């Protein structure tokens, strides 16, 4: 290659459409097609059959040795080289044509109707036609019209066609549906939708107006998708206040199944009007083109000449193609003999789809010969030659090409450039013992890119130029120091090669560059060999690697490939390109590509880009799964229990939203993982290994080179294990383990729920932790604050969860665990001891846990809830007790109350009732037996309460009240209450009796009622007084 020339010539030579290159460049880049198929009937995708060379087709048909009327359709998929072939036919025909043959070549130009008309107007034959009226119309048709105006005219013309449909077309709509469709099309939202950049009006417009930018193979038609109404679109239509008929149609089109059918029908219905609309908008009559060609043929007949017409692409005549075909199929003999038409030989190019859909059957029947160009028209060597010729042409100065052209562009004199760059690279032999340098390509590279970079249906010359030649040459021109800088996916990357490169090349970008080069330009093998004194690495000459400034590498010695074909000879047998390009492994190409895309993303990540694994599909999904697989592997491969991480901790971490492993520069994640894989090559190899395990091995190691992957991940696990264990260990967050908090909280719960009622923690053994129940507390005499805390403890099952934490933390399960608990007794004892020593509290720092593992943090939160409330609870409890105990003290008129006092009280109470009974005072009897019976407990409760009244330590207070001493006092309190009532009753009854005795003053003033008694008493008193004096 000569880069200094190519730099200027690249843009001229590398044009995907043959129509835009110069004739010289066109011929210099032409590679003979040897796989043409000839058919007498149309077949959209013919298989089998004999291959014909372009030369054979040219001689037998294009040259028309029998001077017959003929209509040859050259068809194939988009980009297969139809235009190229027709142009080549035309160029060759210009040299070989008979003297009386007139050649009319309608090039595709910009592939629009106006462009084509303009082209026609410039031909001598049209300029001389007698029909001035038609000529003038054609001139007017080429007049520029404002884009929006023309598009609007096209759109409204379709509405007009719908409204005025006289039902003369094959596809019909009912009157109602036509009205709905017209309303639908009138709707502003619909109009904007259909006139959008990828809508049907744009497509149709682009085939009419010149200078519109559109894919050349766009077909000016409606497609069903144009009428798919999404819920969003419907909403817009509805919101804009659509006509009911339009809305109804929109609703029909939105339906899942019937909507699709309706859309297909409407597209087909409207397509019937495309030709009429285009003609009307272009200002020409349907018969104009037929008339022009009839006139040309008559004129040529008159002067004794025949016509050979080459049309690169019939879609250039969009809108009038039907009329054009009508003109071309008319023979000059038979019933038309009187028309005085010259013989016409038409070679017309079209895509397979256009031919199938737009040619009427009667046109297809009148086509005398079909020439099919398959997508793989070139064999492998043909593709190499194709690339070589382009590289050669762009390395040649224009004048050398011009000189060759001047000398009839013969193969023998085909100019080959002087190789300035790439002398050590591969060459491709062509006829006449010439060789073309493939620099900056290798055959491997062309094979690879053809297979993996060109999608199905794009493996055609056009895309070889656009997607392979141009970018690679541009890359070497602009980025030689980084060549190859285009980050193609490396499909089926050789893990060993990748590992060796990254082991030896520490610069990540250079390593990636070398891997890319050896995998795509080379054969991707991890071997080197020496052949003819030259060292090859991955089948690439070492000097090429050096020439590009790529890092040098030492690979394992391998055997040189078995006998290579003589590089200077043209292979006698052409290999089947598809056979050569088949995958090297049994893994489906889609899977390989999926893997390579993911690894490509990882490579970019290692080079500083962010990585997003938030989606579940696509490459993101592959990477997401890989991360999950890595986590799963580490969870199962590390012996967490033996490393001092309890199974309860493992379980809590696994249930958390924080992953064991995340990636550096990972986006869209809530928390970083416990271990962040750095964005470097080592991480790429590990993640890639897990991708291959899942994708290539279907979640097994059963795939090629898995031995390396399995080694890598286990070696990596060995390497990072300690970091992971430290990170997962709860002690990494706080010196205080969550289990201390859990045990403390459980102990508090037991105290508050009265499950542990002692005033000292001394006897609070581990057994309590495993014995305790979390049943609801029964009726009690605690303060409302106390009961509120008890309620809080069991909210949302928090008590059960905490208790389970305590039970499971000390369990030593096997595998995934089962119901049998085997205790880690030393650890359990140690923690219980520590918690008790710390009086059920932990440091305030630990309480304010910042643990990202929610279930561990929840434990601290749970304890904090308790600790935050126990102060007020204790205070409330004391205040409550103080009031009650004061009553007791008041009753006894003492605060020194012992069991004897209580028993004495019980006795006196009994006496009271007896006296009442004797005095015949009727009060309800309340036996003090319960008080007597519980005198000891009551006395103890009174003593406990009395002693706690001045206590400040909440835990001591809680433990005092854990046994609910107020409840112990209840018999006494009840007794007081009954006595109180009884006394009231006694007073009441005595008062009644007194009342019945009358007023006290009556006794003083005397009445007759007790006069005698008073006399007797007075006598007795006097008698007693006299006896006393004696």
């Amino acid at each position, binding site marked *: 290659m000569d880069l200094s020339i190519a730099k200027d010539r690249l843009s001229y030579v590398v044009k995907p459409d043959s129509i835009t290159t110069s004739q010289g460049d066109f011929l210099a880049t032409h590679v003979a097609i040897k796989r043409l198929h000839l058919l007498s009937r149309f077949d959209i995708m013919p298989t089998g059959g004999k291959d014909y060379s372009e030369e054979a087709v040219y001689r037998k048909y294009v040259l028309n040795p029998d001077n017959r009327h003929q209509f040859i359709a050259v068809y194939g998929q988009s980009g297969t080289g139809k235009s190229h072939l027709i142009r080549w036919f035309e160029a060759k025909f210009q040299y070989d044509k008979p003297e009386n043959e007139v050649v009319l070549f309608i090039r595709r130009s910009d592939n629009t109707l106006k462009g084509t008309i303009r082209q026609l107007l410039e031909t001598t034959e049209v300029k001389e036609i007698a029909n001035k009226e038609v000529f003038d119309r054609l001139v007017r048709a080429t007049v520029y019209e404002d884009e929006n105006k023309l598009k609007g005219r096209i759109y409204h013309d379709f509405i007009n066609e719908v409204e005025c449909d006289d039902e003369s077309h094959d596809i019909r709509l009912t009157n109602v549906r036509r009205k709905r469709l017209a309303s639908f099309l009138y709707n502003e939202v619909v109009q904007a939708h259909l006139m959008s950049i990828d809508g049907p009006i744009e497509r149709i417009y682009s085939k009419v107006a010149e200078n519109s930018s559109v894919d050349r193979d766009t077909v000016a038609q409606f497609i069903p998708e144009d009428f798919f109404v999404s819920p969003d679109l419907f909403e817009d239509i509805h919101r804009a206040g659509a006509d009911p008929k339009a809305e109804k149609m929109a609703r029909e089109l939105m339906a899942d199944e019937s909507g699709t059918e309706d859309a297909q029908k409407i597209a087909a219905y409207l397509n019937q009007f495309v030709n009429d609309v285009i003609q009307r908008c272009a200002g020409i009559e349907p018969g104009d083109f037929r008339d022009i060609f009839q006139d040309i043929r008559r004129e040529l007949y008159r002067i004794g000449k025949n016509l050979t017409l080459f049309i690169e692409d019939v879609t250039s005549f969009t809108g009038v193609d039907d009329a054009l075909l009508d003109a071309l199929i008319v023979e000059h003999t038979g019933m038309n003999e009187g028309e005085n038409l010259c013989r016409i030989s038409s070679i017309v190019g079209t895509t397979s789809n256009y031919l199938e859909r737009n040619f009427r059957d009667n046109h297809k029947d009148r086509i005398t010969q079909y020439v099919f160009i398959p997508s793989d028209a070139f064999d492998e060597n043909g593709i190499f030659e194709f690339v070589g010729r382009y590289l050669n042409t762009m390395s040649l100065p224009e004048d050398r090409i011009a000189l060759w052209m001047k000398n009839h562009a013969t193969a023998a004199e085909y100019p080959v450039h002087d190789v300035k760059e790439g002398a050590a690279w591969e060459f491709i032999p062509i006829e006449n013992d010439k060789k073309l340098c493939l620099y900056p390509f290798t055959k491997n590279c062309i094979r690879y890119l053809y297979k993996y970079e060109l999608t199905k249906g794009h493996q055609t010359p056009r895309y070889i130029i656009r997607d392979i030649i141009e970018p690679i040459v541009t890359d070497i021109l602009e980025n030689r120091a980084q060549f190859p800088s285009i980050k193609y996916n490396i499909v089926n990357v050789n893990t060993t090669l990748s*590992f060796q490169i990254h082991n030896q090349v520490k610069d990540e970008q250079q390593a990636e560059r070398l891997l890319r080069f050896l995998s795509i330009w080379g054969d991707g093998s991890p071997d080197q060999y020496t052949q003819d004194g030259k060292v090859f690495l991955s089948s690439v000459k070492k000097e090429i690697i050096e020439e590009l400034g790529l890092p040098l590498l030492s690979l*394992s010695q391998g055997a040189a490939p078995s006998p290579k074909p003589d590089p200077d000879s043209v292979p006698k047998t052409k290999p089947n390109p598809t056979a050569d390009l088949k995958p090297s492994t049994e893994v489906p190409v889609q899977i390989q590509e999926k893997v390579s895309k993911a690894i490509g993303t990882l490579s970019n990540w290692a080079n500083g880009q962010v990585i997003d694994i938030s989606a579940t599909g696509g490459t993101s999904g592959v990477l997401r799964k890989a991360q999950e697989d890595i986590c799963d592997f580490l969870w199962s*491969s590390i012996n967490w*229990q033996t490393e001092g991480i309890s199974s309860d901790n493992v379980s809590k971490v696994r249930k958390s939203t924080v992953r064991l492993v995340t990636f550096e520069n990972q986006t869209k994640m809530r928390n970083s993982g416990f271990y962040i894989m750095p964005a470097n090559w080592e991480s790429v190899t590990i993640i890639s290994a897990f991708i291959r395990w899942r994708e290539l091995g279907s979640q097994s190691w059963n795939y090629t080179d898995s031995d390396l992957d*399995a*080694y890598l991940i286990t070696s990596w*696990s060995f*390497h990072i294990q300690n970091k992971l264990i430290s990170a997962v260990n709860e002690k990494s967050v706080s010196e205080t383990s969550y289990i201390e908090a859990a045990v403390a909280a459980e102990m508090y719960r037991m105290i508050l729920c009265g499950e542990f009622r002692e005033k000292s923690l001394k006897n609070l053994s581990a057994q309590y932790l495993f014995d305790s129940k979390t049943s609801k507390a029964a009726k009690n005499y605690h303060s409302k604050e106390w009961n509120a805390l008890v309620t809080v403890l069991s909210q949302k099952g928090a008590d059960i969860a905490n208790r389970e934490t305590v039970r499971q933390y000390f369990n030593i399960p096997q595998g995934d665990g089962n119901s049998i*608990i*085997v205790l880690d007794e030393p650890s359990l004892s140690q923690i219980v001891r520590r918690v008790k020593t710390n009086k059920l509290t932990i440091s305030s720092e630990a309480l304010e846990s910042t643990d990202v593992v929610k279930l561990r943090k929840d434990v601290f939160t749970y304890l904090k809830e308790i600790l935050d409330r126990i102060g007020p609870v204790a205070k409330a409890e004391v205040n409550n007790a103080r009031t009650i105990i004061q009553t007791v003290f008041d009753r006894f008129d003492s605060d020194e109350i012992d069991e004897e006092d209580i028993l004495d009280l019980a006795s006196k109470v009994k006496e009271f009732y007896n006296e009442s009974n004797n005095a015949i005072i009727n009060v309800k009897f309340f036996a003090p037996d319960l008080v007597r019976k519980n005198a000891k407990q009551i006395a103890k409760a009174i003593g406990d309460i009395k002693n706690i009244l001045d206590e400040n330590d909440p835990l001591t207070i809680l433990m005092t009240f854990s046994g609910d001493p107020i409840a112990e006092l209840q018999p006494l309190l009840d007794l007081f209450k009954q006595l109180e009532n009884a006394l009231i009753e006694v007073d009441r009854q005595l008062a009644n009796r007194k009342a019945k005795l009358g007023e006290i003053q009556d006794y003083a003033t005397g009445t007759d009622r007790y006069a005698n008694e008073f006399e007797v008493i007075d006598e007795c008193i006097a008698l007693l007084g006299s006896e006393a004096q004696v």
Partner: protein
Amino acid sequence: MFREKMVTPAIPERVFTLCKIVEKRAISSSDLKAKMEPDYLKQTSSYYSDYRTAAEELQLITVSDNMISLAVDTSVIKTTASMRRYINGILSEFQNGQFYQVTKAYFEMDSNVLNGEKSLVALAPIMSKQLNRPVDAMAMRAWRFWVSYLGFGYLQDMFFIPNAAKFLEDIISMAGIEKGHRYSFGDFMAKIQPYSNIIISHDPSNRQLNYGVSNGLRTLHDAGIIKLEHILDQEDIWNLYPLKAHPISGTVTNITLCKEEV
């Protein structure tokens, strides 16, 4: 567990805990059971005898007059790692046991294990056939706990990837290998031979190291714990499982225990 059939309840952590309980003083078997599986748990079955037997087989404890006492120096059970080293040092005493034989057979399968059954459980009938003794699914489940703990490789769910790095590290530390001294590979193998038969064939005609052992050596090399070399003029050539990508891709002649991790 080690002398006869493998049982799942006898996991390393339970054996270790049991040893820690008897570390300070001898204790009756019933008291020991009461500590690990106390009655107040009200469980219907017990695993106690399984892990106690495993501890006894491994000579970590002795049972006399129903009193259980620690049979090793307390340093052995200082950590689970020290207990692992101890056990790895006496594994050769269990050549007739299921654990030893299954481990040996698994390593002899070389990298074929990668292409075989995905689950160890499914490997039971294959092992039975190969060892000519019954090996059931439960035995394979039990095997995985110990083979992973003892550092023979890594569990991936119910699959086991052989990589004996930890095991090799342990036996190297016991074999009297001098740090910084470059040993010929044959000499090195002779030194570790008393401990390594379980995974390395010491047939002098066979200088081939299987996949799991090669993985272990390469891992230790990559971690800077040992240095593997192929010195061209040396004749004591051993073959690691070939991994082209690794700097030590195949043959090796010398090994050095590094003074410090590099």
